[in-house]
């Protein structure tokens, strides 16, 4: 099979879900840190930690589970006790560490590596913090302390064989009966019950359970669904500990634990249960009596009370989910494998072509077909709509990417001791999924650079008469067929002299310095290995960043511009196409080949008269248009194609522009403009210079898409 091993769908789901939850968590943490209180988001955070705990426990990732559990504990305390004096930024720090750990582990899982991270130190740290928090708020620490971390506790020494008639079990001091009910629709109740039993077995002896097939990992889900799962066991643990243990079960709806009298033999347990079954649930008084006979009433009362509390808590946990989801304005979303989408897009592309093949079939030429034309138009409408929808499926809002930057700004600001405020504008702008994936790294680099080099320290800012808090604006907007992402800071701006000096040292300047425009000078910073920073810091200064930024951006067909005013700030504008998959293109013909030129780069097309042509002594042709000379690139010469049209007068000139450089392409004729679906050239054909991909024309033939940027660069060199 291929190198890309198929993962279990369950693992896949876990990875996807966890990442999503962590992102959400990060966001609400940072938000609440800003508000310097967790009141508004505590339920949300709690819910996320709880879900992660649950799913990681199910997947047996103990390290993640333990960590999530301890974070949950922390927030449980915050929520329940509402302590007055705590430092939200400190909590955020700790929890973010935890988030990083889980993220790290999850990406290990994603890459098919072993989960070898050890969270015990983090757990310890969180616990310590919780303790100190409690002490600070003057509370008794001892009671809650009994609750140990899941991983640390386990009593492996006591493992009894499960047997219904295990008489040795009576040596255990307490007997309990627990009735567990699971969430509706949680499915696989029998397995869930089994895992509860399995978990109990470590600390208790199972005396009886109903339905009893559960012990073999089977049993009727229906019964459990209707009546709940009953288990009677003997253990040394106290009631609270038992409850705590049982409440770890996943998707638990309700949990009732009763203490049974010591002299219950296995047989009587059975009888008892039978009795109880018959006497229906409403007959609680009798039950109470029975229990009271074996226990002091006060204890019993306590149990019931805490039961209620437990129930409420559970309801609260689950009840909070929908309301939270609503408040976030989430839409219902399904996640689909991207390759399926690609396939769908391929097929829709095919459909559009097939439609054109039918409606424009040469067999129909000259025929009067009113009804056919009518239906054809209808078909055309539908296919266009379908195509639009398929395209829009791939479009994703930039908000997640942008929100991630909050974290970076926060962390860096803290480390570098600069206070920076991040303003996000237009995060709802939608772009192609591929672009989203590639845009994240460049943005991180740009933001790091801005904070590290751009924004000054507070004291310096005050001297310059600026507000002490630095401002960073991250903006996205649509303009025509392009998307712009703008990163703007109000820092010290780029140092022109420093850049020039470095450029001189690296021999990057190829023309007289006096002729260099500001724009040209600033664009030196995009050269590989170029750094004006004197010292290398954790975040930047190695001169690799900007190089990667440009590379990544040009990979998605974008370009980057920089503007800067000393002491006012620097602005990076990134421009890239809305989608990579579809472009507007002008098809031109040269010989037998057809080429597609992206319409964005076309300035104009025209026929020429002889007098405008200039030829230099190397045979390079140029054309004068309104007093300016532009180089001509003959496509047939460039690609060695046979064509009858070699006279510039007979063909057509297409003037194209990229990065404010202009050349004129010479082709035989224009075929017309259309939207084309971009396809990559087959891998077997290695890169052909000046060709960015290919596309299918209406008649099913293939047209090669010209990569204008490369063509211009080749012509220049």
């Amino acid at each position: 099979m291929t190198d890309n091993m198929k993962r279990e769908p369950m693992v896949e789901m876990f990875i996807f879900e966890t990442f999503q939850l962590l992102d959400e968590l990060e966001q609400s943490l940072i938000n609440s840190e800003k508000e310097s209180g967790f009141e508004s988001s505590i339920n949300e955070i709690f819910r996320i930690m709880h879900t992660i705990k649950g799913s990681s426990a199910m997947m047996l990732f103990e390290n993640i589970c333990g960590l999530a559990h301890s974070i949950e504990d922390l927030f449980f305390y915050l929520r329940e006790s509402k302590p007055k004096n705590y430092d939200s930024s400190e909590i955020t720090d700790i929890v973010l560490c935890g988030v990083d750990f889980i993220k790290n582990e999850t990406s290990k899982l994603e890459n098919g590596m072993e989960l070898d991270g050890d969270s015990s130190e983090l757990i310890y740290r969180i616990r310590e913090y919780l303790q100190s928090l409690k002490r600070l708020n003057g509370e008794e620490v001892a009671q809650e302390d009994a609750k140990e971390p899941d991983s640390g506790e386990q009593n492996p020494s006591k493992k009894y064989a499960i047997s219904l008639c295990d008489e040795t079990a009576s040596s255990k001091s307490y007997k309990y009966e627990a009735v567990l009910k699971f969430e509706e629709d949680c499915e696989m109740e029998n397995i869930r019950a089994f895992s509860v039993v399995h978990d109990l077995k470590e600390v208790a002896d199972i005396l009886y359970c109903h339905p009893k097939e559960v012990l073999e990992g089977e049993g009727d889900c229906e019964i459990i669904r209707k009546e709940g799962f009953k288990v009677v066991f003997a253990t040394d643990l106290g009631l609270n500990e038992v409850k705590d243990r049982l409440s770890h079960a996943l998707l638990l709806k309700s949990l009732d634990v009763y203490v049974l009298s010591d002299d219950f033999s296995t047989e009587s347990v059975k009888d008892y249960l039978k009795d109880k079954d018959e006497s229906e649930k409403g007959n609680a008084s009798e039950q109470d009596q029975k229990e009271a006979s074996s226990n002091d009433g006060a204890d019993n009362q306590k149990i019931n009370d805490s039961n209620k509390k437990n129930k409420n808590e559970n309801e609260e946990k689950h009840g909070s989910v929908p309301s939270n989801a609503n408040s976030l304005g989430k839409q219902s979303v399904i996640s689909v494998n991207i390759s399926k989408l690609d396939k769908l897009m391929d097929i829709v592309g095919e459909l559009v072509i097939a439609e054109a093949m039918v409606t424009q079939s040469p067999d129909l030429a000259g025929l009067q077909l009113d009804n056919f034309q009518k239906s054809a138009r209808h078909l055309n409408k539908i296919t266009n709509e379908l195509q639009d929808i398929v395209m829009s499926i791939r479009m994703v809002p930039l908000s997640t990417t942008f929100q991630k930057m909050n974290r970076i700004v926060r962390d860096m600001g803290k480390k570098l001791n600069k206070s920076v405020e991040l303003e996000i504008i237009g995060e709802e702008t939608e772009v192609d999924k591929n672009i989203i994936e590639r845009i994240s790294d460049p943005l991180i680099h740009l933001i790091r650079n801005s904070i590290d080099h751009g924004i000054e320290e507070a004291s310096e800012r005050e001297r310059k008469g600026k507000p002490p808090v630095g401002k960073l604006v991250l903006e996205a907007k649509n303009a025509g067929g392009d998307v712009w992402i703008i990163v703007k800071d109000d820092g010290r701006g780029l140092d022109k002299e420093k850049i020039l000096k470095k450029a001189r040292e690296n021999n990057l300047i190829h023309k007289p310095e006096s002729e260099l425009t500001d724009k040209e000078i600033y664009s030196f910073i995009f050269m590989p290995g170029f750094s004006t920073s004197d010292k290398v810091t954790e975040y930047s200064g190695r001169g690799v960043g900007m190089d990667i930024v440009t590379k990544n951006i040009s990979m998605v067909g974008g370009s980057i511009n920089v503007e800067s005013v000393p002491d006012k700030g620097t602005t990076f504008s990134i421009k890239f196409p809305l989608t990579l998959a579809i472009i507007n293109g002008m098809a031109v013909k040269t010989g037998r080949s057809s080429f597609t030129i992206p319409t964005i780069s076309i300035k104009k097309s025209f026929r020429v008269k002889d007098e405008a042509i200039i030829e230099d002594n190397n045979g390079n042709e140029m054309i004068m248009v309104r007093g300016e000379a532009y180089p001509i690139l003959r496509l047939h010469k460039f690609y060695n194609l046979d064509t009858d049209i070699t006279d510039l007068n007979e063909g057509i000139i297409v003037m194209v522009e990229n990065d404010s450089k202009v050349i004129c392409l010479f082709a035989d004729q224009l075929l017309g403009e259309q939207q084309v679906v971009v396809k990559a050239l087959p891998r077997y054909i290695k890169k052909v210079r000046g060709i960015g991909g290919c596309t299918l024309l209406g008649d099913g033939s293939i047209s090669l898409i010209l990569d204008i940027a490369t063509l211009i660069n080749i012509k220049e060199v």
Partner: protein
Amino acid sequence: MTKELENVMEVEEDTQKGKYLTFIIGKEVYGIEIKYVTEIIGIQQITEVPELPDYIKGIINLRGKIIPVMDVRLRFKKEQREYNDRTCIIVVEINDISVGLIVDSVAEVVDISENDIVPPPNSSTGFSNKYINGIGKIGEDVKLLIDCNMLLNDEECENLAMIS
């Protein structure tokens, strides 16, 4: 589960093992292992792509999938021939790369057992076709068995040969 899957795959492999698709170029009959073959299509419109070696004729649109096509005649340094209605494109998939092979015509699918395959005579005798990795005998007939990997990727070897 996995074991079953393996079994299925084994069976599948077995049914394909020893089967060769034979095609004709000039007077010779060549064979290609059936497991590489995806489909056989008639000759269709080929879009030229500039700056490729002459034996890569260009790219074709195979139901929305763009695949390169290679003229096996030119690959074997034989003379070009006009395409006609017997000309076929054999679409093969090797290491996840789909390529169309243009051949004069397709003959049949034959079984050649391992015992009937002999290695090609080595180059000291003057026979040096690096694309052939075996010669299959069926009765009196001889089929030249093609090494698909070589067919696609021996640029490096060519370059090396040129340097030395």
